[in-house]
């Protein structure tokens, strides 16, 4: 790790302060049904249309564990090289609130399903290996989400929507290993990428599928850990960084003005860009955790864990290494193409069109990160929605590689592909964009150009080398840009150099 130059410090009146950050990320598990009931989990349904008798905590209702949630949590644990606990158990976290019909949340306090793991983060996308850091994960446990209160529907009452109530979450608890907002953002970005590769969470922060409780404390560099505050339910990458910046500065200000940080829960107000105290440790709930007697302990067999492992796709770190080492991509391209699973899938579909992918990998990667990304960006589309398919892209790249069209013409062809959805070869054929590599034809045009510009030829031959570009331009112009520039160069050099 070489991040001395970028080490994050708060400049206080008493000197520098270091920030210590830990994140508890709540990730909604991708499943059709809730954690302990068969109700649907689809986003955006009308209020209270996805509520089972269990979710509404009707008398006598009992939870039944959704096995898919267990599988996804185990796969996630394996993806971060974590300890999978073969024995885990569900506990009740008891508190009263209108969005919690049971009066308790079923969670895993004492025996979580996943133990310690780690996540490699990168602070510089262009050169991930030179600026990496390992962030420890303390545990992952499974728990129920609560419902939602709506305070703006009635002048004196709050309405309750139980659609989210009972939805399965993984709580992924990091070690306090991060020391800057940038690291925290990199951690969340990488975690999100892994979850999306695994398919255990869609990582959609706008829809609340991923949100973080941000734990922040400050200390003098290398000193004893300070008292932390926990800012709840932060739901964007930008807000996470803002919370850290604000909280760190606030804590330094409090301490330096003679105050003391109290352990408390805070809320982030994005409009004012500040955090506010929600409740202090003294007011903290006593959750009276105890093992849920309605559920049996969860015991996993080795075979089951093995099958979960076997079902994992190639994960971003392995993939990036392979792109770099086997396919010969630049560190930057390898990092960019593996950050999102969908991008990597698209790229690999393109490579699948050839027997020898390593031959086209680099040029394809360059084309993807410049041409395709540029176009998608402009159109506001994700790669899955790309109007040009990987197979069509392969065709286009093939035409460049075999000299049928130049890179410049290729840009033109690509634009037409985006507009019409037509194949590259068809466009080249129809528009007559095929590149001329026939030396005879080019030689003829060169002869004409030279004949029309005898003075310039003489000047060139007299030592005015700069005029070479002029001849290239004239030749290309005469051939409507379709001449193979390499051939033109070679022939011009030869012809201009010959006589005189």
């Amino acid at each position, binding site marked *: 790790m070489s991040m001395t130059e970028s080490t994050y410090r708060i400049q206080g009146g008493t000197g520098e302060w270091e920030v210590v950050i830990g994140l508890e990320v709540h990730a909604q598990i991708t499943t059709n049904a809730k954690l302990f009931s068969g109700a649907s989990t689809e986003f955006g349904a009308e209020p209270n249309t996805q509520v089972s*008798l269990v979710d*509404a*905590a*009707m*008398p*006598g*209702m*009992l*939870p*039944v*564990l959704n096995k898919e949630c267990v599988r996804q949590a185990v796969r996630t644990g394996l993806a971060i090289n974590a300890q999978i606990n073969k024995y885990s158990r569900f506990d*009740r976290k*008891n508190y*009263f*609130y*209108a969005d919690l*019909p*049971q*009066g*308790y949340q079923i969670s895993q306090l004492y025996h979580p399903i996943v133990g310690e793991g780690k996540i490699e983060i990168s602070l510089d996308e262009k050169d991930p290996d030179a600026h990496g850091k390992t962030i420890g994960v303390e545990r992952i446990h499974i728990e129920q989400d609560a419902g939602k209160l709506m305070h703006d529907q009635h002048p004196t009452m*709050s309405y*309750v929507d139980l659609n989210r109530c009972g939805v399965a979450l993984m709580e992924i608890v990091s070690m306090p290993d991060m020391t800057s907002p940038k690291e925290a953002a990199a951690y969340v970005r990488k975690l999100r990428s892994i979850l999306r590769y695994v398919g255990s969470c869609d990582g959609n922060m706008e829809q609340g599928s991923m949100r973080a409780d941000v734990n922040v404390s400050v200390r003098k560099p290398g000193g004893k850990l300070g008292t932390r505050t926990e800012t709840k339910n932060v739901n964007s990458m930008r807000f996470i960084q803002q919370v850290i910046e604000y909280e760190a500065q606030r804590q330094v200000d409090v301490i330096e003005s003679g105050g003391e940080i109290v352990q408390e829960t805070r809320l982030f107000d994005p409009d004012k860009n500040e955090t506010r105290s929600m409740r202090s440790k003294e007011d903290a709930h*006593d959750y*009276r*955790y*105890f093992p849920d*007697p*309605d*559920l*049996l302990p969860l015991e996993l067999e080795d075979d089951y864990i093995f099958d979960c492992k076997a079902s994992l796709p190639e994960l971003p770190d392995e993939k990036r290494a392979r792109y770099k080492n086997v396919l010969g991509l630049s560190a930057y391209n390898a990092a960019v193409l593996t950050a999102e699973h969908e991008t990597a899938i698209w790229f690999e579909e393109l490579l699948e069109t050839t027997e020898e992918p390593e031959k086209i990998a680099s040029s394809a990667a360059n084309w993807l990160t410049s041409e395709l990304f540029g176009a998608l960006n402009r159109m506001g589309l994700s790669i899955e929605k790309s109007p040009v398919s990987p197979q069509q892209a392969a065709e286009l790249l093939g035409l460049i590689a075999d000299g049928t069209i130049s890179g410049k013409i290729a840009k033109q062809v690509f634009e037409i592909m985006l507009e019409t959805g037509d194949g590259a070869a068809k466009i080249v054929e129809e528009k007559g964009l095929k590149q001329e590599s026939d030396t005879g034809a080019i030689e003829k045009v060169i002869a004409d150009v030279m004949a029309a510009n005898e003075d310039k030829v003489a000047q060139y031959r007299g030592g005015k080398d700069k005029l070479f570009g002029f001849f290239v331009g004239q030749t290309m112009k005469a051939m409507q840009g379709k001449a193979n520039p390499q051939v033109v160069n070679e022939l011009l050099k030869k012809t201009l150099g010959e006589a005189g």
Partner: protein
Amino acid sequence: MAEIFELGIAGIRSGIASGDFTAKEVAETFIARVSAAKSLNAVLVETPDHALAAAEATDKAKAAGKTLGKMAGVPIGMKDLFCTEGVATTAGSLILEGFTPQYESTVSSNLFKAGAGMLGKLNMDQFAMGSSNETSAFGNVISPWRRNDGGNTDLAPGGSSGGSAAVVSGRICPAATGTDTGGSIRQPAAFVGITGFKPTYGRCSRWGTIAFASSLDQAGPMAHDVRDCAIMLESMAGFDPKDSTSLELPVPEWEAGLKSDLAGKRIGIPKEYRVDNMPPEIDALWQKGIEWLKDAGAKIVEVSLPHTKYALPAYYIIAPAEASSNLARYDGVRYGMRDLPDGAGLQDMYAATREAGFGPEVKRRIMIGTYVLSAGYYDAYYTQAQKVRTLISQDFDKAWESCDLLLTPTAPSAAFGLGEKSDDPLAMYLNDVFTVPSSLAGLPAISVPAGLDGQGLPLGLQIIGKALDEQSVFNAGLALEERAGFVAKPEQWW
């Protein structure tokens, strides 16, 4: 021939089979019995239509020559802890007043599928917390039994399944469902001279049964005799994927397996159950029980269950702890009572609703449960109680090395007068002293009426068996039943 109302499940079954009477006649008989027994306050909601519809279905099926279900034509009483679709269900509490489930509990549904009809929902101790039925929000059930002193002291039918006990002993329903958390089937059965059976934990689904203490609650039959209990349990039990603690095992044919010859069986007599101040009559009955089982061919051995004395304290930590959490859902938000004082916020509504909706015993247990789970007390109480629970289970496992079944009294006293113990919760809790250990260990147990005390009140003996060995429990119960020759019934005064 006996009157229809004097018949139990097997009697009704054979009467219908032989054409002595129709299921409809049976239903009408018991509907009238229910209707005439209002002074006992045992039935909270009468459901004559349900009983009649089931009876008509049975008669039709019989006429069509179809095979009848195990409970065909038997109208039963349903403890009000079971949620019944379209029929008000309160668990004896004001907090659920006005609640009508839109679903049927697995146990009641199983019974209906077997052909049973429902005569009504039966009164009970509020949320099954009590041993006398005095904690019901709808007034206590009065036992059909009276002392033989010529007086008319109202007696407790036991609890929490007191309504069930009263209707079966008064021949108001031929059988009834009960639930047993620490003795709530067995103690009332003993108090009123009927047979009550608590199966192995997990035999009967808890789905749709209002929870008291999830790790202990088990449904079971309360009926005239051992055979009736076996028939009824066969219909109640069975794996239910909706209850994660339900046992994924086939239901044995216990009735077909009934056999009172106990040759080769070893019966353990746990010495720790000889408690202080045990009435001599109960001790004497226990001795008689030993002789009866010997007579049936069993070998008697003394065994030790050394942690017995810690069972009651552990139970009164674990059960309230679970209850404090299970009862959190009664908050006035979605169903049942809501007390929303003027200008009240959410917390005020919770407090007002729960203050008005729960009775004193329920509040006491919620307070105890909340306390024992609190930060700083959890290890000293809850964790310790769970350790005791494990030790108690191990006591039984150890005992099974030298015996197959245990014989004990069911309760430390005969029925007491209403009000006699209601001011002293600890004295009330002692009623469960013989039934709680097997509940903590999840073991099957039966209470069989075995004699009368000097006041003419029934006393019961309990057989406890190994997990899943209901058959041996039924068989030993049958051996006791045959030898005890218990025929006493309360004289009808109501």
